[in-house]
C-alpha cells in the first residue's frame, strides 16, 4: 500500500510539473504531416457514421443512423447528403451532413414482399433516385426470387415513377450508376457502358469497352472498389480507373489506367505492368494516382504519374489481408482501412507509416475524403 501511495504522489507531482511547464511555454507547433483540412466520413458499427477531422485525426462528430448498420454510403455531388443503404439492403436513409440529422428514410419492402435495394444513385437535384432492386416474395412453403429491376423513385412523394426497361431485356444484378453532371444522361458502368436519357429513360447509346482495339485482346474495366464508386477527386464527367487486358498473342495479363470521358465517349488508356490485385485511387491534383496491390503475403504501394503515364515508384509495406485505400485531401497521406476498427496513415511520398486512427467500432462501409471547401460545391 505504501508503495502505491508513493507512486501516486509521484504521478501527481509529475502532472503538476508538466502543467507548470505547459503554462510557461508556448505550445510547440505541430509539424507532423497530416492529410489536410478535410473530413473523413466512414460508416461503422453500430448504426453510425464517423466524422474524422483530417488535421487532428480525431473523431469530431458522429451521425447516428436510424435505419440500422450502414452498409453503403453514397455521397451526393454537392457533398451535402449521404444516401445510406442499411445492412439488410431494405432501407435507404437520407442524411444531412451539416446538421448530422436524418432527413428521410424509405423502403419498398411490404409484408412478405421483401425488396432489396442493391444500389442507389440520386439525380443531381435530389428529386428522384435510380434504384437497382430485387423483389423476393415469401410464400407459404417457398420463396420466389424476382428479377433485378431498375426503378426511378420519387424521393419526395415516396413512390415509384417508372420501371426502367433493361437494354435488350437483359437484367443486370449489379450496376454502377452515374448521372452526367447536367443530369441529362444516366450511365450504366460496366465493360459495356449504357447511356440513357433521363426524360423517359430510354437507352440512347451503348459503348462496348471490352472491344477497344483490334489486337488489344480481352479488356476489363473496373468501376468502384470496396464501398462503391467514389468520384470525389475526378473531374465531373470523367472517370479514372483501372483497366486490365489480356493480349491475344502472348496471353499476358496487364494492368493499366483508363481515363474515361463519358461525355465524348472517349477513353484514354495505357498499360503499366503485369496485372495483379491492384486497385488505384486518384490523387486530388489528378496528376498522380496511387495503386494498392494486395496479394497473399505481398502488399505494395504504387505511385503512378498520370502525366508521364508510368509508375514512378513501388514499395512493399506492412499491409493487411483485407484493405482498401483512399488519398487524403491534400494528397500527402494515404489512408489504409477496411476490415477492423483502424485507419492506418502512410506518407504518400515515402510510403512511411505515420500513425493509426482507432475507432470505437468496426468499419462497415467505404469512406469518403471530403475537402473542406468542397462541401456544398458541385465543381
Amino acid at each position, binding site marked *: 500500500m505504501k508503495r502505491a501511495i508513493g507512486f501516486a504522489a509521484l504521478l501527481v507531482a509529475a502532472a503538476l510539473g508538466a502543467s507548470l511547464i505547459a503554462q510557461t511555454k508556448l505550445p510547440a507547433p505541430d509539424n507532423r504531416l497530416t492529410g489536410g483540412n478535410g473530413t473523413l466520413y466512414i460508416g461503422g458499427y453500430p448504426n453510425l457514421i464517423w466524422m474524422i477531422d483530417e488535421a487532428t485525426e480525431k473523431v469530431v462528430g458522429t451521425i447516428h443512423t436510424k435505419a440500422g448498420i450502414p452498409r453503403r454510403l453514397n455521397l451526393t455531388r454537392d457533398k451535402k447528403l449521404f444516401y445510406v443503404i442499411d445492412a*439488410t*439492403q431494405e432501407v435507404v436513409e437520407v442524411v444531412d451532413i451539416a446538421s448530422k440529422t436524418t432527413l428521410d428514410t424509405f423502403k419498398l419492402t411490404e409484408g*412478405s414482399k*421483401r425488396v*432489396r435495394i442493391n444500389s442507389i444513385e440520386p439525380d443531381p437535384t435530389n428529386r428522384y433516385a435510380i434504384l437497382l432492386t430485387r423483389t*423476393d416474395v*415469401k*410464400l*407459404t*412453403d*417457398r*420463396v*420466389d*426470387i424476382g428479377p433485378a429491376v431498375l426503378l426511378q423513385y420519387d424521393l419526395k412523394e415516396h413512390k415509384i415513377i417508372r420501371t426502367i426497361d*433493361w*437494354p*435488350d431485356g*437483359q*437484367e*443486370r*444484378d*449489379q*450496376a454502377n450508376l452515374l448521372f452526367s453532371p447536367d443530369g441529362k444522361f444516366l450511365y450504366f458502368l*460496366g*465493360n*459495356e457502358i449504357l447511356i440513357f436519357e433521363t426524360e423517359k429513360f430510354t437507352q440512347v447509346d451503348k459503348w*462496348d469497352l*471490352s*472491344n477497344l482495339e483490334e489486337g488489344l*485482346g*480481352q479488356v*476489363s474495366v473496373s468501376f468502384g472498389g470496396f464501398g462503391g464508386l467514389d468520384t470525389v477527386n475526378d473531374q465531373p464527367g470523367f472517370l479514372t480507373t483501372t483497366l*486490365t487486358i*489480356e493480349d*491475344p498473342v502472348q496471353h499476358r495479363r496487364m494492368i493499366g489506367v483508363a481515363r474515361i470521358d463519358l461525355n465524348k465517349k472517349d477513353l484514354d488508356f495505357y498499360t503499366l505492368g503485369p496485372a495483379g490485385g491492384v486497385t488505384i485511387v486518384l490523387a486530388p491534383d489528378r496528376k498522380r494516382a496511387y495503386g494498392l496491390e494486395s496479394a*497473399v*503475403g*505481398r502488399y505494395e504501394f504504387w505511385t503512378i504519374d498520370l502525366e508521364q503515364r508510368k509508375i514512378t515508384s513501388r514499395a*512493399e509495406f*506492412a499491409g*493487411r489481408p483485407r484493405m482498401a485505400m483512399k488519398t487524403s485531401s491534400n494528397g500527402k497521406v494515404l489512408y489504409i482501412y477496411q476490415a*477492423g*476498427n*483502424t485507419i*492506418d496513415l502512410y506518407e504518400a511520398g515515402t510510403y512511411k507509416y505515420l500513425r*493509426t486512427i*482507432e475507432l470505437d467500432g468496426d468499419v462497415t462501409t467505404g469512406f469518403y475524403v471530403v475537402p473542406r471547401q468542397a462541401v456544398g460545391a458541385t465543381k
Partner: protein
Amino acid sequence: MITRGRFLAVVFSISVPALIVARAQTPAPAQRPPSLAASDEGIPVTDPVVVRACGSCHTRDDKQRMTRISDRRATPENWELTIRRMISLNHVQLTPEVARAVIKSLSDSHGLAPEEARAIQFEAERRLIDFTYEGDKDTNTLCSRCHSIGRVLSERRTKDEWTRLIAMHRYYYPGIDGASGGFRRGGPPPSAAAAAVARGRAGDQSGRGGEQDQPMDKARDVLSRNFPLISAEWTAWSAAMRTPKLAGRWAIAGYAIGRGPVFGQLTIADRAGVADGFTTEGKFTYCRTGETVSRKSRAIVYTGYQWRGRSADSSDDPGTWREVEFIERNGRQITGRWFTGAYDETGIDITLRRVANDPVVSGTDVSALRTSTSNQRVRIYGANFPATVQPADVDFGQGVKIVRIVSTSPEMLTVDVDVAANARLGPRDLSFGGSTIPAPVVVYTKIDAIKVVPVAGMARLGGLKFPNRPEQFEARGVSYGADGKPNTSDDLDLGLVNVRWNLEEYAATFRDDDIQFVGELAQSGLFTPNVDGPNPKRSGNRNNVGDVWVVATYNATSADGSVKPLKARAHLLVTVPLYMDWDSREVGR
C-alpha cells in the same frame, strides 16, 4: 476445403427447443397453384404426425404427396436443420416430442440409402477433413464458401427442389448473389458475353465474357443430375429397411488422436417405448495410460442404419459425448465416432464388433513390432478369451513367434513375442480362437521418419465470449519398408510415437508475428488457442489469429548408437470463434 463447422446440436432425444403446439406460420395457408404441386416422382408422406405438423403450409395431393417435402430426401441432421429453420424463421411451433417424431419419420421415409450416406459420413461424424466434391469443383467452391459441401451432399432433390433451395438462400442472405464468387456474376448481360466468346475471347476472372450460365444455375444442374430424388440405391433400401436387431454384447475398439487406442465392451439393450431406440452401458480403457472410462448412452437408429446417440448423464459423464455410427448391413459391425467439445473437436474413432459365444479379437496395445527383438510385450484386447491359452493359439503370422503367455482374462491376453531378424516387413493379421483382425501391427526394422497428423489443423480462439477450439496433434512413426525409399507403397505407419513439440512461425507474410499470439502447444501435442477478441498489442488491434507450423522432433537411435533427430510438421490455422452458428441455427437465430 475444410468441412467442419460448429456444433450441430443434433441430439434428437433432447435438443429440439421446447416450443409448443403445431399451428400455421405467419402467411395464410396457401391456395396451391399448379406450379407448387409435388412432382410426379414425389415420395408420399403417410405419417399423420408429419402431416399434422407440416400440413398447414405443405399441402398434400390425392396421392399423399406434400409440397416440397415429398420432393426431397435427406440425412437426419439435414431434416433437423430444416425443422430448426421452420421454427426460427417461419415461426412453426412444435413440441420437442413432435419435432423428434417428424425428424425420425422423415429420416426413415425420406432418407438416404446406406450407399448414399457412407461417402459423406464425415459430415454427421463432425470430422475436420479436407474434402472436395470432385463431381464439379465449381459447385464445390460455390457451396463451401459458406458451409460444408458435405451438408449439400446429404441431400437428394428434384430439379425444382434444388431450384427452390437456391431461392431460399437468396432470400435470406442478400449478399449471396455477389459478383465475387457468389451465386450470380453480375456484369454485362449474356449477349455481350456471347459476343466476346464469338470473338474468340475467353472469360476473365470476373466471369465476364465466359460461360453463359450463372454459377447458381450450373450448381443446380449438377446437383439435380448427380443427386436426384429417386435413385436405385434408395429404391432398394427403402424396401429392405427394418429395425436393426442390436441388443447384446459388443466389443469396443477405438482410437483417440494423441491418446492412442482404446478397448472395452458395451451392452446394447432395446429402449422400451422408443421406436428404434436403444441404450448402452459399457467400459473402455486407454491402453497407453490405463485410464478406464465407464459410460452409458441412449440412441435412436434412423433409416435402419444411422445410430445417433449421446452419453447418459452420470457422475463421471455429464452427458456431453455424442455418438454417430453406421450400422453395417450384416448387423455384426458398427463404425463411427464418439465426440464432444464446443466444436465437436475431441473424439474417438469407434468400431463395435458383436460378441456372441466365440472369442472376438479387437486389437493390440502396440502397433509396431521391430525385427530382431525378443520378448516384446503385447496386450491383445477382445472378448470371450478362454482361461487357458497356449502360445500356438495366437498367430501373428510369419516371423513373429509367441514365446510366452503372460496372463489371460476374458478381455485381455498378455503375450511376449520374438520377432525374427528376417521377418518380412509389413502388416500382420492377428488370429485367435477363430477370430482374425486385419493388420493390428506392422513389422519394421527402424523408424525412418515421422509424420504429424492432422497435417492441417484448425483451432479457434476463445475463452472470453466464446468457447475455444483446441487442436490435438500426434506424431506417428514411418518406416520406408523393404525398398527403403520414402513415399512408396510399401511405407509403413508405425503408430503413435513420443516426440518433443514446438511451434514455428509460418512466414506466409513478411514480419509475421503470429507465433507470439496464437496460443500454446503442450508436450502432449495439444494446442490450446489464445483468447478471443481484439488484442491491443497487435497492429490493427487484430485478434490472436494466425497460422503456424506445429513441429515434432523424435530422437531416433541409429545403428551405430548415435541419436538422430527426426522432424515433421503440420500446418495449424488459428482462427476466430464461430460467431454465427450457421449449422444449427439458421441466419444467426
